[in-house]
């Protein structure tokens, strides 16, 4: 059976990379005594398919992962056994069974929403608003990838909203493309607006088809 798990990833495990999450799921299932199905071939691998990778340091309210398991189990049994065996900072919000032939998450998802919390009180609402408006005026936002390749961030931005507050603290809402080879990074948008890496924490709200 193939299941799709939605889960939260909180601050305490936000420094575990997308790559490491694969191993986290494999181990959590083995601890929960639920047998994951393996790929065929010379080096069988557990069939675990992550959604759109969450960059290191981001937290998330809604991440998704697909897992094939060897036997048919009740969803709330899986949920209960698994939750007890997850490392601190991961919390299951829902589990659904999906058809085995369903397309991979990474090909279904089109865009994601983010909330970026500003950590410094020195950023006034005016400043935040100005920076947002200025960025939205740009026709082209050239950024550099880690491998040195330049790309235009502008078409990857769907929307930016500022001047919103939660408990008196400002945050910026972003909607960015999350398609294969066309994914906007929330931190890059922030850098393009002139914020530095220690100014904010990014939270992914959800990803949509």
């Amino acid at each position, binding site marked *: 059976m193939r299941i799709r798990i939605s889960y939260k990833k909180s*601050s*305490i*495990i936000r*420094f*575990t*990379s997308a*790559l*490491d999450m694969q*191993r*986290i799921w*494999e*181990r*959590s*299932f*083995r*601890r929960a*005594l639920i047998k994951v199905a*393996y790929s065929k071939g010379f*080096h*069988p691998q*557990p069939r675990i398919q992550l959604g759109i990778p969450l960059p*290191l*340091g981001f937290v998330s309210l809604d991440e998704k992962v697909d897992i094939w398991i060897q036997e048919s189990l009740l969803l709330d049994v899986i949920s209960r056994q698994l939750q007890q*065996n997850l*490392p*601190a*900072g991961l919390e299951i919000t829902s589990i659904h069974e999906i058809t085995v032939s369903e397309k991979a998450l990474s090909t279904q998802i089109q865009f994601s929403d983010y909330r970026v919390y500003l*950590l410094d009180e020195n950023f006034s609402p005016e400043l935040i608003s100005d920076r947002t408006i200025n960025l939205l005026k740009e026709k082209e936002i050239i950024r550099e990838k880690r491998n040195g390749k330049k790309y235009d961030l502008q078409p990857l931005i769907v929307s930016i909203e500022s001047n919103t507050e939660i408990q008196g603290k400002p945050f910026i809402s972003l909607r960015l493309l999350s398609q294969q080879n066309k994914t906007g990074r929330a931190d890059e948008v922030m850098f393009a607006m002139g914020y530095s*890496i*220690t100014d904010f*924490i990014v939270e992914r709200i959800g990803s949509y088809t």
Partner: protein
Amino acid sequence: MQETQEIIDFLDRNLITVQKPGRYVGGEFNQTIKNWDSVNVHAALAFPDIYDIGFPNLGITLLYRIINDRMDSLAERVYAPWLDMEQLLSDNNVPLFSLESKTPLRNFDLIGFSIPYETLYTNVLNMLNLSHIPIWVKDRNGTDPIVIAGGHSTFNPEPMHAFIDAFIIGEGEEIIEEILDIINNCKIKEIERKEIINLLSSIEGIYVPSHYTVEYHQNKTIKKIINRYSTDKKTINKRIVKILPSPIANLLVPNIKVVHDRISIEIMRGCSRGCRFCQAGMIMRPVREARLHDIMSAMRNAVELTGIGEVSLLSLSTSDYSQIKDLISNVVLLSEEYNLNFSLPSLRIESFNSDVINEIKGKRKGNFTIAPEAGTDKLRSIINKPIPEQTIFDTVQEICNKGWNNIKLYFMIGFHHETMPDIEGIVNLCKEINYIGKKTNKGRFKLNVSINTLIPKAHTPFQWVNFDDYDQIIKKYDFLRTEFRKTGIKTSFPDYKASFLESLLSRGDRQLSQVIYDAWKNSAKFDAWHECFNFKFWEDALKSNSIDPFFYTGRPRNDNEVFPWDHINSGVKKEFLLMEYKRSKNSRTTLDCRETCLSCGIQTNYQINCNKIRSIKA
């Protein structure tokens, strides 16, 4: 507590700026976090290298469990921050903190360093400094934590004597309880720090260096070592546990990638082979096997409690485990049940026979490692690893037949009585093995050869020999490099200066404390890392102390010389080591002590019968 919250806030904001921030956050599955105020004794277990390297350390894992199982104590962990994190901490004046509760190290009662090898010494100093704890024993007082250290390198504690309040000599399982009992009592009675250390010194296996004075001869060798504090503790006897406890199952599970990311189950402690260069083989005696039943139940529990999909059997010589065949077939069954990979490090050719090979067949074939150590039968006799060349070839043929394609060979150079024909022997042996492999498995076969330099170690029969001359070693490396060219065999060689430093520190005395300190002041740290090691820091430190390193490295010792570590009793008598040294000079081999007792001293020192404690049947 306020300080802890400040550290947490600081990390929340700034950790994103360093490489692999997951090294500094803890939060692993099976981690224990206790309420700080609910216990009386707070111990920090420290490993002087980065998280990725230190995480799998079994000694720390073991002590972590023992301490946290006590009602009166807690243990938290700390590893050396990598250079970027160190910079971040010192730029912001944030003290080094524990992973679990983010408490500054200086707030702990006890800091226990595990120091398996000598090239970690400068990192110990660096971590103390980052913790804002005085580096020198003489400068600590009042509320400073008590700094203790254990691990293989501390069998010669003298080079670090000025920085460590008390050393644990030997195995930690029982002694840690005695240490905690004393600290707990003293804290209740508000006994002062200095007196606590005095009380600790009464524990068997504890060495408090500040209680001892060393007298020297004119030629700088040692005249005698005196215990000023108490006349009834002239030597410090290594601690052992007579029966191995069941292997630990609730191991911590890292949230990021670390080295040796697998379940390690200790199946046997000690080795009876008696290779003369091998420090572990001497200082870990006597041989004690874990019970097959305990191993298997620990392994099953560990798989279920950690979910880790790879298991490894840990010992100095896995195939010498008396029920190895049953063990492997049990492990094979378990790995099929849970989809596990398993590895069997430290196999000995002499005991690794077709039976064992047949048990493993069908599993994924990784590297197969063989350690002939020397290139000729003669030299293998000198080092007492007498494996006939033909046996090596036969084994290689057999494992190639069974489908292994990657073979790794380990050799050392720099043995006394080593001649160029012995070095040629390494080349010939490798070429023949490569020929067998290629003939059997064609292009898929790959041979890796790792060459190391002999570091004569304390408490071994080779503690009397000199570290080979620079010219000799370089000549041998060059010869090997040339000979291996165009053979398709991959080789690796050590950095001569790194070996030289290890050799210096391994048999050093108290004079080297100042050198270690000065080298650290000159910026030496992470000496075990290629990209950080810089011998210039050490050269300058030696020069400013007018110390000629060749006194420690290049000088063959007299039979009757008093060594800096002579007051540390590993249980193996010095006379036995000397006899072994002399036999080596005559190319005489010594039997595995399972066959005949050689009176190394272990039986009399611990009043045990090695045969009886070796394996306890279920």
